[in-house]
């Protein structure tokens, strides 16, 4: 479904990705994990065409995203969808209008049918009763579910989740895990989940990529990864404080610096 | 429903703006008087027009009856020719009428004062395009002072 080949992306002088390749297969939940600050969100924006890579190809449904013309890109985006970390609901509209937004923008369906579609999507995320609330009246978990309803409003083929579990209490986390799984199975969507919550990801992902230091350091099914020989992968999966990724930020010798303070 | 309500409010806003423009155009700039009303033209040669400008008023006894519509220089006599647009409702000035360039107040703007002349059988009424023969130009302050000093020197 999405095929990334030899992707290189720089932001200014800093290299974010160096010659990285990944594949996301149709109908599967694929997860991208890695420590914070390695630009996982950037990867999603690259797939969505909001950023252009320095080199390499990103093929989505037969089209190479970076080379698309503007209106072709907008056509391609109608087939994909993204759930932002903050939810990114439109603050001036009610939940109902938020979910109806993509339908109203891209179709000319009569209002009665739109209403039916919106109610179905809201029912799927369990927020049918909250349709008249404004986004500011929702809790964090509800806002994310409402955003999810909006993301699936047009039944996209690909849905990308940006840190769907971050900052959620255990109950709403469980709700979202269930939703991602069930939406993927019921609607046959391809899902890409970017996260660093190891247990949740391992429970729903069909395939996992672990990204660190500008490239993929390990990939496989969750079962394969647990057996992975790389110490870096093991450190990440088990959440050890010190290891190949050092606890200390790069610095001069500790004892020496203390001495300098004295002098 | 809400869009309709907004449309009404925005419509009212635009209507207020148009009303403001009308007020400015009609009441403040007074575009209406010379533009739409019927007028006829009179011409007059002056010695000197001083600070007279296009759109300066033409007054009879203080009442505005028209405006200066054009000022040009006669290429032969080198005298300014002033075209006046007079409101058609004042169409019975005799040819013996006289024009003078006057100043309203000490520092005010200049205007043309029209003094209606006498009427008898031999006198015709001024028509569109006629010249008013009897004119008195603007008083130029410097000349006036010069004359005054000259007279004093003589006496």
């Amino acid at each position: 479904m999405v095929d990334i080949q030899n992707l290189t992306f720089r932001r200014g002088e800093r290299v974010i990705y160096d010659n990285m390749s990944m594949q996301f297969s149709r109908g599967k939940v694929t997860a991208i994990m890695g420590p914070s600050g390695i630009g996982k969100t950037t990867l999603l924006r690259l797939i969505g065409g909001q950023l252009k890579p320095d080199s390499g190809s990103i093929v989505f449904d037969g089209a190479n995203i970076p080379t698309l013309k503007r209106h072709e890109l907008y056509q391609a985006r109608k087939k994909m969808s993204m759930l932002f970390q903050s939810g990114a609901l439109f603050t001036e509209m009610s939940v109902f209008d938020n979910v109806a937004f993509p339908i109203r923008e891209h179709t000319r369906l009569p209002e009665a049918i739109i209403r039916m579609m919106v109610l179905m999507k809201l029912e799927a995320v369990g927020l049918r009763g909250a349709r008249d609330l404004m986004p500011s009246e929702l809790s964090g978990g509800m806002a994310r579910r409402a955003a999810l309803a909006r993301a699936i409003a047009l039944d996209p083929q690909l849905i990308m989740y940006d840190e769907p579990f971050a900052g959620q209490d255990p109950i709403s986390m469980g709700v979202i895990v269930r939703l991602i799984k069930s939406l993927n199975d019921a609607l046959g969507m391809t899902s890409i989940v970017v996260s660093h919550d190891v247990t949740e990801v391992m429970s729903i992902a069909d395939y996992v990529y672990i990204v660190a230091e500008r490239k993929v350091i390990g990939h496989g099914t969750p079962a394969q990864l647990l057996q992975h020989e790389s110490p870096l992968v093991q450190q990440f999966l088990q959440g050890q404080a010190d290891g190949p990724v050092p606890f200390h930020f790069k610095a001069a010798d500790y004892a020496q610096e203390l001495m300098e303070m004295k002098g | 429903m809400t869009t309709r309500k907004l449309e009404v409010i925005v419509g009212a806003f635009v209507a207020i703006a148009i009303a403001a423009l009308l007020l400015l155009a009609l009441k403040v700039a007074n575009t209406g008087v010379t533009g739409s009303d019927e007028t006829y033209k009179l011409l007059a040669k002056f010695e000197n027009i001083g600070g007279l400008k296009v759109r300066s008023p033409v007054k009879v006894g203080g009442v505005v009856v028209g405006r200066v519509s054009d000022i040009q220089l006669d290429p032969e006599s080198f005298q300014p020719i002033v075209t006046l647009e007079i409101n058609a409702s004042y169409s019975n000035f005799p040819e013996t009428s006289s024009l003078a360039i006057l100043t309203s107040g000490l520092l005010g703007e200049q205007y043309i004062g029209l003094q209606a002349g006498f009427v008898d059988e031999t006198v015709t009424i001024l028509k569109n395009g006629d010249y008013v023969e009897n004119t008195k130009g603007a008083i130029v302050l410097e000349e006036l002072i010069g004359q005054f000093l000259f007279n004093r020197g003589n006496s």
Partner: protein
Amino acid sequence: MLNKLQQLGAATIGTIQGLGRASLMLFGALWGRPRPVKAWPLYVKQFYVVGVLSLLIILVSGLFIGMVLALQGYTVLAKFGAEQMLGPLVALSLLRELGPVVTALLFAGRAGSALTAEIGLMKATEQLSSMEMMAVDPLRRIIAPRFWAGVICMPLLALIFNAVGILGGHLVGVDWLGVDGGGYWSAMQANVDFYDDIVNGIIKSAVFAFIVTVIALHKGFDAIPTSEGISQATTQTVVTASLAVLGFDFILTAVMFGG
């Protein structure tokens, strides 16, 4: 020395880059594709937010500025016995200068800062990004209606400002200070020209509208998506737009009335 030179260079390059990004934004907003399907309600909403909601401050300021002009003008004119010139004084000051400029400054403070903050906040909360991912162009859907609303509403507001100001001048000059009412209007009519004064004032106002709206939209769209960045962008909108208005006012006045 070299450092100062470098600073100057960096500032110049920054300014030019900003102008370039603003032009790109404007171009994308006005000619970009795809267009939103149902644009009309969006425009109506922005006309309401940008125009109608600025009406009150314009009405009140216009009235007071007209009243103050009449009061100040009267004391000076009375010394020369030229009270009948009060009408032209109030009308010409408003039509040529104060109407367009004060409206633009108030507009920058009222509507401009609100536009910047709104768009900056939409950017910070990823609303613009998510709109883009839903294949809806934010330039077309968010920027374009606000641009047109600003550019069209401000000259209308300036007209209202002028009219209210002249009425305010009448209130003080005629009803309070006792200038002859007929003289107030007729002296005004004798001295105000529709094209030279009123139309030129509208042209000025339209130029200011363009400047203020583009600055406000650009600052919001380019804001650093943090709360600090947005507050900075809002301040910059008011400062930059006000300075730009005053600068362009000098140029326009020199071109229109200077010769």
